[in-house]
């Protein structure tokens, strides 16, 4: 008789809580008139999740799921981002009341649960299933905007078709891996891979995996969905896709390469060089001619995914930890700039077009100054966090002897400064066009903007503790992985 394994439910408490709350919101949403309950319920849930993640014991739930140092750290970062997204959504949905609030917050919680499962998954089938759980709610969240903007269905459909193509490529890669190694578990794949004679065939599997993930990360040959989907989504959801979904996908890609494909990671990094250089170049060049600031930020997010991917080329764990650092900084910057754009969208939607922003610095000097901070950070100007993130990424590249890639990346990032500085030029130097906005600022605006702007300046001046924390996380994770006590 076969022994059933002990099921250790305390390990997946966070996911169970998210599942229960999201299902409850879907169940009772019809019967409650005051729709703001969903916001407070999900806010409290996410805060409880943060506490639960801190106190969850590390361990396995069957063989497919494992909480460990790495996944818990990234989960904490994601929870921080989700809290800010919820606050931004509250501010945004006060003005856009036709969007159904209950479904909106429940779908965000479902997507977050998918990201959590994906981060702790220890085999490729679980990763596939949870990547789908992460992206299915996002299709609906984009399409939910059709009450205000009917063409937004187009963006949702494009994202859906491209996303299903990405999952099909992931499945193909799974098939190749299963054919040549006969297993799905990451650790067993590592063992089989290091003694397997089929290195070239498994490199093909790794390539299919990279295709699938670069669709999710909107790297260049597969980036065409990104601007349309970003423009058609409600603003908080745009920031959710741009920061959180990309962060989770990047963290999982690092995990797969680090555990399963570590004998092939140098070759995989070399395969990524053209994709990543192209996505930096094309993202930055296409951002120049955009007049809609959301499309501009979409192209800039393509370029930023490219910068983060530079760490994958360097193929050592220092480079990987700098990717996590970069994605964290990018999350903070994106959520900051979007929490300001929500004010524009709420008061006068025309302000989202860059030429209409002319002369805003005279009417709203404080918000203009905040935009200046975030734009400098996105462009990578020194006293801000964006510079530090780029600095460490390029440092890791130079250390692993890819100097020409680093030089090209820096040259492309000079082009990338133009679109951000153009916004600042229009705001600070042009003649006034639209009369100033009269808007009532409340706590749901000040909390996210305050936290993100202070963090951007603070990390820009003194990045050392955060960098060392992220680096130690990956180092500890690797040492417990290869030398279990």
């Amino acid at each position, binding site marked *: 008789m076969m022994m059933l394994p002990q099921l250790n439910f305390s390990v997946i408490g966070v996911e169970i809580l998210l599942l229960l709350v999201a299902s409850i919101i879907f169940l009772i949403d019809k019967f409650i008139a005051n729709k703001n309950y969903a916001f407070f319920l999900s806010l409290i849930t996410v805060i409880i999740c943060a506490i639960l993640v801190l106190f969850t014991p590390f361990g396995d739930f069957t063989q497919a799921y494992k909480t460990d140092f790495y996944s818990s750290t990234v989960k904490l970062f994601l929870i921080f981002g989700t809290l800010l997204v919820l606050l931004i959504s509250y501010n945004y949905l006060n003005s856009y009341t036709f969007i159904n609030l209950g479904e909106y917050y429940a779908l965000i919680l479902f997507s977050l649960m998918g990201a959590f499962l994906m981060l702790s998954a220890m085999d490729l089938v679980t990763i596939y299933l949870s990547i789908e759980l992460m992206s299915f709610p996002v299709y609906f969240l984009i399409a939910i905007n059709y009450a205000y903007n009917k063409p937004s269905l*187009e963006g949702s459909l494009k994202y859906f078709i491209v996303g299903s193509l990405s999952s099909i490529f992931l499945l193909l890669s799974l098939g190749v891996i299963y054919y040549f190694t006969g297993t799905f578990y990451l650790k067993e794949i590592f063992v089989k891979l290091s003694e397997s004679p089929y290195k070239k065939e498994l490199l093909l599997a790794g390539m299919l995996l990279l295709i699938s993930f670069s669709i999710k990360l909107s790297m260049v040959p597969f980036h065409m969905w990104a601007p349309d989907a970003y423009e*058609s989504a409600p603003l908080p959801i745009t920031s959710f896709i741009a920061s959180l979904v990309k962060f989770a996908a990047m963290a999982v890609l690092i995990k797969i390469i680090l555990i399963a494909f570590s004998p092939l990671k140098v070759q995989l990094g070399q395969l990524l060089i053209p994709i990543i250089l192209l996505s930096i170049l094309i993202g930055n060049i296409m951002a120049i001619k955009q007049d809609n600031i959301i499309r501009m930020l979409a192209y800039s997010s393509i370029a930023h995914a490219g910068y983060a991917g530079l760490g994958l080329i360097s193929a050592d764990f220092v480079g990987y930890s700098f990717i996590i650092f970069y994605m964290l900084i990018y999350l903070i910057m994106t959520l900051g700039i979007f929490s300001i754009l929500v004010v524009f969208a709420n008061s006068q939607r025309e302000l989202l077009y860059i030429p209409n922003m002319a002369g805003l610095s005279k009417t709203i000097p404080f918000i203009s100054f905040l935009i200046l901070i975030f734009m400098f950070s996105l462009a990578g100007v020194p006293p801000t966090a964006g510079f530090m993130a780029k600095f460490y990424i390029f440092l890791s590249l130079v250390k692993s002897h890819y100097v020409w890639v680093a030089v090209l990346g820096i040259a492309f990032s000079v082009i990338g400064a133009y679109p951000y500085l153009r916004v600042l030029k229009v705001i600070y130097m042009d003649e006034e066009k639209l009369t100033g906005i009269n808007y009532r600022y409340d706590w749901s605006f000040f909390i996210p903007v305050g936290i993100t702007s202070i963090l951007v300046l603070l990390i820009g001046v003194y990045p050392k503790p955060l960098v060392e924390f992220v680096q130690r996380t990956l180092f500890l994770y690797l040492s417990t992985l290869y030398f279990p006590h």
Partner: protein
Amino acid sequence: MLTQGHYLALSSILFLIGLFGLLFRRNLIVILVSIEIMLNAIIILFASISYYTKDTSGYIVVFFIIAMAAAEAAIGLSLVVLIYRKLRRIYSDEITFFKG
């Protein structure tokens, strides 16, 4: 006598049919059907590997893929129905609201 090669050939032909359908057909429903064809090709791949190596985990993946294909079809069809009702369009080259 059928060997594993036959199954792999069938799977790759089906996959290519699906891929070309996705790339070159204009009707949204046909695009959704092409996605399903590709998923079915992958199902055949997993089932044949499982059958010839006597390992059951491939069969389990087949069930997961069937469930996911159903979920994907539900989402895709609901989106297409919404597009037809709100925008009155069904061909992919007519849906051009976003450019550049």
